[in-house]
């Protein structure tokens, strides 16, 4: 991490006369987004060899692109709450239909993307809007997961929603304590503390074996399909549905926090702490608020994934996904989560194509992952989201300054 106090990270901002371009560019922008979405979906269908998926691919990629380039604002309501809710409902509908067309494993991957997207979005809001870098979010996810597992161990019949809420609350509590400690620190100093935190949490789990079950972890009850669905309903699909729904709720909440007065105050503190405090903003409170919101996101889906998989690697993967997607952007977090799930998968399948020695074969996916990471950073310095915005601005498809969305 670098000295964020001096150069706050943010996506490039373009001033412009919003209303003037609003009239002239509506239809053109819409057409362009549809064409690009169709092209992307066609490529995906051609690569995947799964033609029936193409229409749904068009819809979902189109939605993401509309959000990414800001063209969505051309026809959506001006009120942030209404706009976010509307987008979430539409996205939910499309994703439910989409989940019908993919395999059981595909549904599992959708669920993975959904819960990673929430964790990455939380981290991205923390970094992009308050300028605090945490390398310990994987450990916060672990805290939530252990809380859920322990509660389920003591109270086997507790409803799963209550267990998940409990996980979020415990994560918020731990994140709050960490956030209070973090509020005084800057840039690499905060990163160092959170990095050590990420290493210390698994150690506690190993040391107090009787409570946390050491390296083997704790057993967790899996998400059962509810009675009102037919008995043949695949559980993976139910998992995907629950994760999509929860992720969209979390993203809508986050989007509203970012657009609220509190969000603006947090950004003020990021840009200049002294000026912000002179303007009457309580600096410490704003920073801790950002940290707590972000911790809640980390704890959000922790109950669904099994504990034990939370090494330091997870924390670093989340940061990587955040930067790849575009720091500070919620749509970018979705791009990042997609990359986090699918880049290792495809690099795995690429390395299976060649006949290689065992040592090479086992390590090639990791090497490809690292190389993709390096190339992506060199090619898109502002992440996928920043690249798309730049492209949209180049072709005048966007009409507004896209300050940290």
């Amino acid at each position, binding site marked *: *991490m*670098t*000295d*964020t106090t001096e*150069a706050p*990270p*943010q996506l490039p901002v373009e001033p412009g006369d919003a209303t003037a371009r609003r009239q002239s560019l509506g239809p053109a922008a819409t057409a362009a987004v549809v064409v690009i979405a169709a092209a992307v979906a066609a490529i995906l269908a051609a690569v995947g060899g799964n033609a029936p998926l193409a229409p749904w691919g068009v819809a979902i990629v189109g939605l993401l692109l509309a959000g990414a380039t800001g063209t969505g604002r051309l026809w959506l309501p001006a009120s942030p709450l209404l706009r976010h809710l509307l987008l979430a409902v539409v996205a939910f509908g499309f994703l439910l239909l989409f989940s019908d067309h993919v395999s059981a494993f595909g549904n599992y991957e959708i669920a993975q993307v959904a819960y990673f997207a929430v964790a990455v979005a939380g981290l991205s809001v923390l*970094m992009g809007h308050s300028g605090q*870098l945490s390398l310990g979010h994987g450990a916060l996810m672990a805290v939530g997961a252990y809380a859920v597992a322990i509660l389920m161990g003591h109270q086997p019949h507790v409803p799963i929603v209550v267990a998940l809420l409990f996980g979020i609350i415990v994560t918020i509590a731990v994140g709050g304590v960490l956030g209070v*400690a973090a509020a*005084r*620190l*800057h840039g*690499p*100093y905060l*990163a*160092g*503390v959170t*990095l*050590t*935190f990420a*290493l*210390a949490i698994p*150690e*506690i789990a*190993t*040391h107090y074996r009787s409570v946390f079950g050491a390296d083997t972890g704790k057993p967790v009850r899996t998400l059962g399909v509810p009675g009102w669905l037919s008995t043949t309903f695949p559980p993976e699909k139910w998992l995907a549905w629950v994760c999509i729904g929860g992720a969209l709720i979390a993203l809508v909440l986050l989007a509203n926090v970012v657009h609220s007065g509190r969000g603006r105050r947090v950004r003020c503190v990021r840009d*200049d702490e*002294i*000026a912000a405090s*002179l303007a009457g903003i309580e600096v410490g409170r704003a920073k801790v608020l950002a940290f707590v919101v972000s911790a809640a996101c980390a704890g959000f889906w922790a109950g669904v994934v099994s504990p034990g998989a939370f090494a*330091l690697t997870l924390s*670093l993967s989340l*940061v*990587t996904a955040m*930067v*790849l997607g575009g*720091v500070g952007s919620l749509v970018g977090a979705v791009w990042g989560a997609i990359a986090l799930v699918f880049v290792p998968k495809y690099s795995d399948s690429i390395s299976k194509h060649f006949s290689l020695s*065992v*040592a*090479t074969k*086992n*390590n*090639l996916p*990791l*090497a490809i*992952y*690292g*190389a993709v*990471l*390096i190339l992506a*950073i*060199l090619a898109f*310095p*502002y992440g996928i989201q920043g690249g798309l915005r730049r492209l949209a601005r180049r072709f005048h498809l966007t009409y507004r300054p896209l300050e940290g969305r």
Partner: protein
Amino acid sequence: MHQFVNLTLGGVTSGVIFASVALALVLIWRSTRVVNFAQGAMAMFTTYIAVSVIDRHWSYWAAFFVALAAGLVLGAVVERVLVRPVESGPPLNAVILTLGVFIVLEAIVPMIWGSKNRTYPPHFSIIGYKVGSTHYALSPFDLFTIVAVIVLVTALFLLFQKTDLGLRMRASAFSPEVSRLLGVRVGRMLTLGWALAALVGSLAGVLVPPSTLTSLTPNYMDPFLIFGFTAAILGGLDSPIGALVGGVALGLGLSYVGGYLSTDLETLGALVILIAVLMVRPEGIFASTRQRRV
């Protein structure tokens, strides 16, 4: 008392290794404002190069200096080829880039040298000195470790403080714009800074396997990178002396926590030490106060 002495000796030995990793991180931070997460992996890579030199039955010293030279080259290449292009972008990008280098190096090493664990033979005995009838946890190799780090640090200190080149390097780290106007080739100085830092890291890489009895695996440097980073932060990322003091303090702290409480709790001990120090001094022990303009 015997246990205390042994824990102290062990702590100092691991402390100087943390200190050398911390020093490598501080040198890079001072010149380019990047925390180099690839430092551990780079040191691991150069140590594997040294192992293949030893495999050809060359002497320990040949391998030792090959590792240092390889570190010098690798540091320069990474800065010039990969870090330079992202320096103008958002500050986090360079960090992610070093994470990428870290991943690639740890994946490439088993492809080249095989996934079997290797050992790195020490040149000196690793059995502790004997005073009277009791063994102490200080072996000739540990002594060599401490002396090697001290020699390197002194050499670096002389380079930075007493030579023209050192003055140019400090100037370009302190104020790149002004230095460039005064005719300093700032780009070259940054490359040299990375190269020297990687050299310090490679020294830690060769010293770690025998003195801590770890066998050589692609990720054996990971804990040392993290503790080195903790040590650097403890001392203050801008201060080379802070890196040394932070490293030894952390080594002692971890050794006492491991000896008197439990080895499982070492990292937790590091976290407690770190938070306690940073609550009092948020920018490390040797932080200099800075003016900030509103």
